């Protein structure tokens, strides 16, 4: 993991939090405009609310868990009308939830990187919200509700962007993950972020006009969305497991080498991430790599064994089987193409063959060289390089080398 960068970020975040906390509380207490006692009560109340909700987390499509604390912070920003109180509440809540998480081990499911990304981004939200509100209020003639909405939108956007940047920064410590991949991964969470922002703003605005009914108006729809996100992420996991299980049937039947599909998909996914493919392409690639040899189940049929078969037949049969699932059309196409050379003599570049299927070809050949010909990893990689005139795309081969170096399988 990205130990040193997380450490650096941790120190930076602590300093930022402590400084802003001291400044906010001090300014709030000495400011003559605010009555100190109700002000302090507000801050304490919202610190509690944000701290509590920070432990409600939702699995986002990127695989990280987002904290509902941001929703509470948005509600606080709408209801407090006071940048200093908002900043103080957010800061206190972040310090408190951090202490609880690291000391008492509550909500330990979130990684440090996730937590830090949220913390820094939330402080940014509080700052931007206050400035944006003032700016819109002064420059445009809008109703208070629209002004609030505009400020939430601007601050929410800033929050989301900073969060993605921090996530990419932390992830980049692993030299085998491309920045583009990490950035796109973080952007996938937009729907979760949007629903949290909107629920928080709706709660704040509705609270002012309808009191406790706001709980039903804002929380019920959010709870629905929250359940849906939870279910989506757990179904995604079981879907992957189902495909993995189905892909192993030929191996169990003794028609393909044991573990080949899992190892191929492992290496293929690592290459794709290193090359900076989009997360959705990586998922497709993962499924296709798992199932690239599924056509071998056909070899169960003695008549086919007698008649003989080629690699292309295996790929075609596999693609036909996968094509029965309407959701897996692209995966089926990848499986059909994965045995093809990346270019043919005289052709510099074959546009029909996507990068993903070239990656599967390399990953599969790398594993085969080790299993069937009992070569060492370095020799297997050498085989791939030797074949990179037509068979294996040299860019993929180079990426495979970097992945293997990162994993410590081969020296530089």
């Amino acid at each position: 993991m990205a130990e040193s960068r997380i450490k650096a970020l941790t120190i930076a975040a602590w300093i930022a939090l402590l400084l802003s906390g001291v400044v906010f509380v001090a300014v709030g207490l000495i400011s003559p405009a605010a009555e100190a006692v109700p002000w302090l009560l507000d801050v304490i109340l919202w610190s509690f609310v944000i701290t509590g909700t920070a432990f409600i987390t939702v699995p986002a499509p990127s695989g990280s868990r987002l904290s509902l604390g941001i929703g509470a912070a948005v509600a606080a920003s709408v209801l407090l009308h006071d940048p200093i109180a908002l900043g103080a509440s957010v800061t206190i809540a972040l310090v408190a939830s951090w202490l609880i998480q690291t000391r008492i081990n509550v909500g330990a499911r979130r990684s440090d990187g996730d937590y830090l990304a949220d913390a820094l981004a939330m402080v940014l939200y509080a700052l931007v919200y206050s400035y944006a509100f003032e700016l819109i209020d002064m420059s445009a003639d809008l109703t208070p509700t629209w002004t609030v909405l505009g400020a939430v939108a601007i601050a929410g956007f800033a929050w989301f962007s900073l969060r993605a940047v921090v996530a990419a920064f932390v992830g980049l410590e692993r030299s085998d993950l491309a920045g583009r991949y990490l950035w796109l991964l973080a952007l996938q969470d937009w729907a979760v972020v949007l629903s949290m922002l909107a629920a928080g703003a709706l709660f704040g605005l509705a609270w002012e006009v309808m009191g406790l009914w706001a709980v039903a108006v804002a929380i019920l729809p959010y709870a629905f969305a929250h359940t849906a996100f939870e279910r989506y992420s757990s179904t995604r996991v079981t879907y992957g497991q189902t495909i993995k299980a189905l892909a192993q049937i030929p191996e169990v039947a003794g028609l393909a080498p044991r573990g080949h599909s899992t190892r191929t998909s492992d290496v293929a996914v690592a290459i794709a991430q290193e090359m900076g493919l989009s997360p959705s392409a990586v998922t497709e690639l993962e499924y296709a790599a798992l199932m690239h040899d599924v056509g071998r189940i056909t070899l169960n049929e003695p008549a086919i064994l007698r008649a003989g078969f080629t690699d292309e037949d295996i790929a075609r049969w596999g693609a036909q089987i996968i094509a029965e699932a309407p959701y897996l059309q692209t995966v089926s196409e990848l499986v059909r193409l994965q045995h093809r050379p990346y270019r043919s003599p005289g052709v510099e570049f074959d546009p029909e063959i996507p990068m993903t299927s070239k990656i599967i070809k390399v990953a599969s050949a790398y594993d085969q060289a080790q299993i069937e010909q009992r070569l060492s990893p370095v020799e297997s990689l050498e085989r791939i390089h030797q074949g990179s005139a037509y068979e294996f795309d040299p860019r993929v081969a180079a990426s495979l080398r970097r992945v293997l170096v990162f994993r410590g399988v081969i020296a530089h």
Partner: protein
Amino acid sequence: MFPNELARQHRAKVRMAIAFPIVGVAVLGALFFVQDFPRPLWLWTLFAAAFVFLEWKAVEVNDKLFASPGVMVIMTAAVVFGPESAVLGCAAMAALSPFQPEDIRGRRWFQPAVNFGQLIVTASLSIGVVSLILSLTDAASIPWIAVASAIGAVTYGIVNYRLVAFIVSRVYGHKDVAPWSHVTQIVVPFVGMGFLGGLLGATYLLLGTAAIPLIAIVFFTGYLAFESYARLRQAQLSTLAGFIKALEAKDLYTRGHTERVAYFSNMIGEEMGFNGNRLETVRWSALIHDVGKLAVPRDLIRKKTRLTKEEYEEMQGHVHHVEDLLNEVEFLRPMVEIASNHHAHFDGGGYHGTNGNRGEPPSLEARILAVADSFDAMTSTRSYRVALTQDYSFKELRRYGGTQFDPEVVEAFIAALTAAGEQYGSPVEITEQEARRRAEAGLGQEHALDAMRTRRRADEGTEAAHG
């Protein structure tokens, strides 16, 4: 399906497709005289677009329970438009929704025409109820708004359900009308959606236009998440089913076996009053009940003579390996357990799989699967015997009721299949000895094709009944 029955259905359809739109237009016309059209127009357009979109994309949660958030939108609209224009505004929204692009592209006229009238009546009645309650009580109080729209939503659900049931019973006869027990499944979500819809409408009244984007975002992100969840779930089912189908297709003898067993198991489950998740579990178990055999070499499966001990163990070894694989997928575990017990007998004999105990009857789900599997085995041609007739198979199921099969399950199956009017197995009388002799004489392939033709005719009959 007899031709005169089809002609009767067609006449009934034409009558419905004329009567319902006339009623719809009449109601809409009358409303134009008593109510104002909602203002501003863009707000109505927005609500109408949301409603139509959601009606087009009703999400299947599981099995028969459809979440149609459209009713929530219509309740929000009713509160937003106010009592002077709510009924007309909502009825006009409902009138737009039946014209779905797929129906228009496929030139289907019956459903759009009938739904046009049906939805206008449903919307006017339910929004009428909302307006009535609000005019009798306090139209500005939040609790009353919420209660009125909850009642309105339930009215919407029930009127809609009754009208559809009426149409179906007139066109297809009474047997296709779902029982009232399904209505409770409708009421609960409708109360929730109506309640929330009313509250969102009240929020708009109190906050003004700025509430619209917020409500829309909260609502649509939730909807999107739920839709992608439902799609993924569907994908998982179709991946597994498609895989098994494709793998089986390589073999003439077992082609379609899994699909039919799933169909029969579902039929028995429904007949025995299963619904929702339990019915789905039965169907999934049926889908994977033979997946282990895919890993067994074909010549072993097709052997005409008894397997030797070694061969049998080899086969079981393959089957267990696949079961272990599927057991790694957590949510498949209960289904794998059921599937692995489908050779266990009702009296505790037979082959017991995971968590099955000798001397004890297997779970009800496994008993259902056993009947469905055996019936399909008897009515299809196998390597050792050509297909038997349906009557003979029924007799066999009854004969072993109480020992191998659960007699209640057998009777439920026979009742359901008879009511559905479907026919499987050999079209001509044949005794078991004769069936075995013919397989030995190498007539199996031809017979398998014969049985397939019978099934195809049966399929066409059912398709006609549901199309």
